């Protein structure tokens, strides 16, 4: 029943088969077959691996994003500086405080051996006034003769300290100041004297050039200047040895390495200013089967400066700069796009067909050539025998 229908298609058969009766099988043919099959197997394996593996296609475009924010994740440990000394500030390129930053920064007090003692969320909002129950409702603290703030009162130790700085005085003897005694300022200092500090957390900043720095002393704004009250640390110096466990400007993606991760700086006794000039390059990573991720890579140049320098006559030169760790970041106009790609199935299929068909055809040509040569040789030898 089916035979006649099939027979109708016989004339279209492109694969004309030699009848078995007429076929000649040779040993060399078998060897060529096996060798070609082996080659095909290897090439197919390579093609398959190539098909399954993910290629990373990277391209470079000009960053066209607007009003973007950038998350800075950091985890820095200072082995020799107690937490109460350190402050963290974020500024933009014009030197102004970034007011619209959200932050979740934690300060962890570390014992000299590195174990964590106490963990607190750093509130950069200024200290609250004293408890009214203790001092009375209309308390107005004395500023110790220093220039008073606008409110006219110095209600906290911090207020007094700022008043002192405003007057250009050094705040070296807090034990004589009522507000500080009440807040236990000296006890806090003594208790933490040998401690270290670990700062970690996340800052979200606008994607503009700027800097963030960790420096001693409460910072404050005077006119257009950003100042730190560091007078009390100038004489003895501070050991700003630090260990950057982690610093990144966005989510982690494959193939992006943060150069500052695990950067250790030791032996920074004296008064050092560590500057990291970071250039941030926007990066978009397009996964094969996930939402693309926008993140940032960076390159960095480090530069250290000892602030306590002596002039050629052995005299201390005037301190020019602020001790601490500074991260100046600059934004590159370029955006790197990394795209995960895999060969399409049809192109894999085409590859497979090209391998199998190509190698077999070539092998059959070679085989036919060998066979004819062999036969001609044999016939000639027979001819020679006959003679």
């Amino acid at each position, binding site marked *: 029943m089916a035979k006649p229908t099939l027979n109708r298609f016989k004339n279209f058969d492109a694969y004309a088969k030699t009848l078995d009766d*007429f076929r000649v099988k040779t040993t060399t043919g078998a060897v060529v077959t096996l060798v070609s099959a082996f080659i095909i197997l290897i*090439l197919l394996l*390579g093609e398959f691996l190539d098909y399954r593996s993910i290629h990373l296609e990277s391209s470079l475009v000009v960053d066209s994003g607007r009003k973007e924010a950038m998350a800075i994740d950091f985890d820095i440990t200072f082995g020799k500086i107690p937490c109460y000394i350190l402050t963290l500030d974020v500024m933009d390129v014009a030197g102004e405080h970034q007011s619209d930053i959200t932050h979740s920064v934690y300060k962890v007090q570390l014992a000299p051996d590195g174990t964590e003692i106490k963990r607190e969320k750093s509130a950069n909002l200024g200290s609250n006034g004293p408890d009214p129950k203790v001092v009375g409702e209309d308390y107005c603290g004395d500023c110790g003769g220093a220039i008073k703030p606008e409110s006219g009162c110095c209600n906290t130790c911090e207020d007094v300290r700022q008043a002192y700085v405003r007057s250009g005085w050094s705040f070296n003897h807090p034990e004589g100041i009522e507000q500080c005694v009440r807040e236990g300022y000296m006890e806090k200092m003594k208790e933490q004297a040998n401690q270290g500090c670990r700062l970690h957390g996340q800052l979200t900043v606008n994607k503009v050039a700027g800097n963030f720095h960790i420096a001693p002393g409460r910072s404050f704004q005077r006119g257009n200047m950003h100042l730190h009250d560091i007078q009390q640390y100038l004489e003895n110096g501070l050991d700003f040895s630090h260990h950057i466990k982690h610093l990144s400007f966005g989510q982690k993606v494959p193939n992006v390495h943060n150069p*500052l991760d695990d950067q250790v700086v030791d032996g920074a006794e004296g008064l050092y200013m560590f500057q990291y000039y970071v250039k941030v390059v926007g990066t978009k990573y397009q996964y094969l089967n996930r939402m693309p991720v926008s993140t940032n890579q960076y*390159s960095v*140049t480090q530069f250290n400066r000892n602030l306590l320098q002596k002039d050629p006559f052995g005299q201390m030169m005037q301190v020019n700069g602020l001790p601490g760790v500074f991260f100046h970041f600059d934004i590159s106009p370029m955006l*790197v796009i990394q795209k995960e790609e895999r060969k399409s199935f049809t192109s894999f299929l085409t590859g497979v067909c090209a391998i199998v*068909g190509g190698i077999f055809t070539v092998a059959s040509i070679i085989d036919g050539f060998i066979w004819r040569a062999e036969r001609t040789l044999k016939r000639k030898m027979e001819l020679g025998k006959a003679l």
Partner: protein
Amino acid sequence: MQLKEFDAFPKVESGFVKRTGSGGILTLVVSAILCILVIGEIRDYMTLRNDYRFLVDPLVNHELQINLDITVAMPCDALNIDLRDVADVQLRLSDKLQKIPTHFSLGSSAQSIHIRKQPLNVQKLIKAASRTAALEQSTKESNGDFKACRIAGSFAANKLSGNMHITAVGHGYRGTHIDHTLMNMTHKIDELSFGELYPTIVNPLDDSFEISETQFESFQYFLVVVPTIYVDRSKRELLTNQYSVSEYRQPLVPDMSVPGLFFKYDFEPMTLMITEESTMSFGHLLVRLAGLVGGYFVTAGMVHKVLSAFYYSIKPELAPLRRHNV
């Protein structure tokens, strides 16, 4: 079972196959075409392509060497060389660089023009660079009244954007001005490069000169430096820096500008990696060759069959007896 049984290629005793003249001609023509194509394919495999990739520097950078060889048409002791960068570091370079009194002459070496016109060949570039050709040409001329000064040398500076400048003593700094009749900011740059010194690599400013028309003129060069890694086919690497430059000259505006040469440079965060590589792997070449040869032979055979069938259907009297097919 014998090994013979594995033979997958149908071979028929010569008595059962028919060879035709047209088939022979076709085989020869196809072979000739294939020869040309295979040679083309192999040549394609041999030629190398430069692959350009960008990566963000994964290392923490510190310092970088800057190489300089500039001749200014002013006496040496009237020149002051200084560098300042964004970290507020000042490098007083006047003593760190060699100052050689010389005569001012202009003459661009033909070699660098020649090199500049050539297409990029990474392997040649790496080979030439590693040979560290001698830069120092002797400048021991007969002593006379040297009116120019050649400033040459290398120094390390922070890898930060900065401003290197050559000014006349007293201008822009404290101190007494030198004799204004001596001032002439005409200059010739023989070498200005960043990173290790490879005299064979031609940078955009090499062999350039500017002639100052007045005594007080300031020349500003704005450079953007792109760190570059060249990798040739045997995986040898060469780390260097390229730069692009734009320049600008300004006659003196009193109290506004300082006469001199100013090189303001900045670094790109992206590192350019130029890799010399072949367009395909050896396995890929094999597959392509097999596909080429196999495909051509099979297609030509089909075409031959179709054409001859067509021919015999028009002239059936010429058709051989072949109706004995099963």
